[in-house]
């Protein structure tokens, strides 16, 4: 028996497997017992109602996908009346993902969702910030720090900052989030991408561009998880292209304390509980008695530390 429990800051998870925001909802209860996984993470909500982006909202790119859903939201009222009670049926901690167009709106929502039944708040700072000409907060360290400070003041709950790969400054942004008060980092959101139908000459997504997720994203997200684990002292939750227990182990070795599974659930809706089982077997076969022993166990000392944060020269 391998102990799969991990601590994400003050929050104890029975295992390190949880869904990625936007790829999970109440409906997955049709497929498996939702108490089998380490945490529940909701789709990002906004304060007010939002329709979301034009269709098509999804397309396939070699072995991965693009999406541009655009955060349709039924607003905070619906969330508190309907969604929280649903998840309160379960023993598993509930993490609510939130977002806002401005730092103040974001902070207001953050305090509004600080309610009984919510165990942590994931702040999706990878979404456009209208005060920074449409750039996501998490593209720059300064805007990351500013928004995190406001969010920190708005809640006593654990605050997880979800970072974007659309930046050249991952370690700096990670440190800014930590300094701004993040209790953990979720690494990472989708990377901005595009596909065009060569027959119609139209973009394959209604919104022209969208986020790349799935296996293609994995080596990028893994690099970011490693950078963030090295750059900060807060737990890192890996996310991006994770499809099986081997991928989970790779993120844990790189320094992640837990992981989120997104697109893989679309391919196999029961993948999360399967990964929990497989991870236990994989750790057992490696002689581990606790998953905590592999976290951050990457062997990188032989390397010149200079190369670690250097932009790898091609």
């Amino acid at each position, binding site marked *: 028996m391998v102990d799969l429990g991990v601590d994400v800051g003050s929050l104890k998870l029975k295992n390190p497997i949880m869904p990625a925001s936007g790829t999970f*909802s109440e409906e997955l*209860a*049709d497929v498996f017992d939702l108490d089998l996984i380490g945490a529940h993470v909701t789709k990002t909500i906004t304060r007010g109602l939002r329709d979301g982006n034009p*269709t098509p909202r999804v*397309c396939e790119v070699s072995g991965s*996908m693009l999406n541009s*859903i655009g955060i349709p939201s039924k607003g905070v009222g619906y969330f508190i009346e309907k969604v929280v009670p649903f998840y309160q049926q379960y023993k598993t901690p509930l993490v609510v993902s939130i977002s806002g167009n401005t730092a103040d709106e974001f902070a207001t929502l953050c305090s509004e969702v600080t309610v009984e039944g919510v165990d942590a708040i994931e702040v999706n700072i990878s979404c456009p910030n209208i005060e920074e000409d449409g750039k996501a907060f998490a593209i720059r360290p300064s805007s990351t720090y500013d928004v995190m400070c406001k969010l920190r003041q708005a809640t006593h709950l654990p605050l997880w900052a979800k970072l974007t790969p659309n930046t050249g400054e991952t370690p700096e942004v990670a440190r800014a989030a930590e300094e701004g008060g993040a209790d953990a980092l979720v690494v990472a959101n989708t990377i901005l991408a595009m596909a065009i139908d060569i027959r119609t000459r139209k973009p394959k997504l209604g919104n022209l561009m969208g986020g790349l997720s*799935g296996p293609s994203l994995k080596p990028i997200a893994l690099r970011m998880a490693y950078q963030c684990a090295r750059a900060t002292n807060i737990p890192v939750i890996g996310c991006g292209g994770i499809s099986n227990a081997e991928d989970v182990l790779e993120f844990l070795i790189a320094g992640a304390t837990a992981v989120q599974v997104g*697109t893989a659930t679309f391919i196999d809706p029961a993948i999360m509980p399967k990964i929990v089982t497989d991870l236990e077997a994989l750790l057992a076969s490696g002689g581990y008695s606790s998953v905590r022993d592999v976290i951050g166990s990457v062997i990188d000392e032989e390397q010149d530390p200079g190369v670690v944060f250097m932009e790898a020269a091609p």
Partner: protein
Amino acid sequence: MNAVVRSSALEPTNPVAFERDLPVISNEPVNGEYRLMILSAPVELLEQCHAGQFFHLLCPQIGGETPYLRRPMSIYGFYPEKGELHFLYKVTGEGTRALSHLKTGDTLNVLGPLGRGFTIEDDWDHLVLVARGVGLATLAPLALEAKRLGRKLTAICSARSADVLMSVEYFEALGARVITVTDTDGTSSIENLEAVIEQLVALDGVDAFYTCGSNRILRLLQKIGERHDIPGEIALEQQMACGLGMCHCCVRPFRKDGGQVNLRVCREGPVFDMQEAMPW
């Protein structure tokens, strides 16, 4: 009587969607464009199926094709008595090309049944379906259901030419009346279709319309339905990722309560109220 049975999302202890590897019994071309795939399925899965629902198929990576996401496919037939699940599909891209490579004895991973199927209310006696192209795949099991419930069904089948008219025999074998209209002999025009349907309404009375796929047919049936106050349902398509209602990829706009709402084809559909549907 309602053909739809789904567990509410609030019943996590009673999962209803199956994810299974099903053996392929056969997978043969039906005519130049369509193929029929027959899978062997367990009875408990087949008993969950309803006309208008779909399965989300994990198309295999064979024959050089590398589909990634699942592909939605309507239930063409489900036979608990002989343990068979049928799909009728058109080869259009990577996923369906991959499906076409499956041979007897291979397995296909399916997820379903998913979505909300067709409604047949207790007092709907004469059902009329208007189908074009692969839309037949979706509407065919309605004939099965109508027969089981002892209702009268008229199937108006539209196609480019007579040789791609499928399922005519299928409908007739189930005791349905079949009216065929084709582009080649000009009978499939909207004007002619309107005349044909108006005649049905006038002579036999129609209790409900069912259709799918064509924008022009939708507009026509909305008009006729409104004119005579006849309800109807339409099965719609949209690109999907999860198929379960989680990702909100598959929405379409609907008229509801004076406004417009986005509904998920995979969850609130694929079958929707015909008057609420918006032509595209």
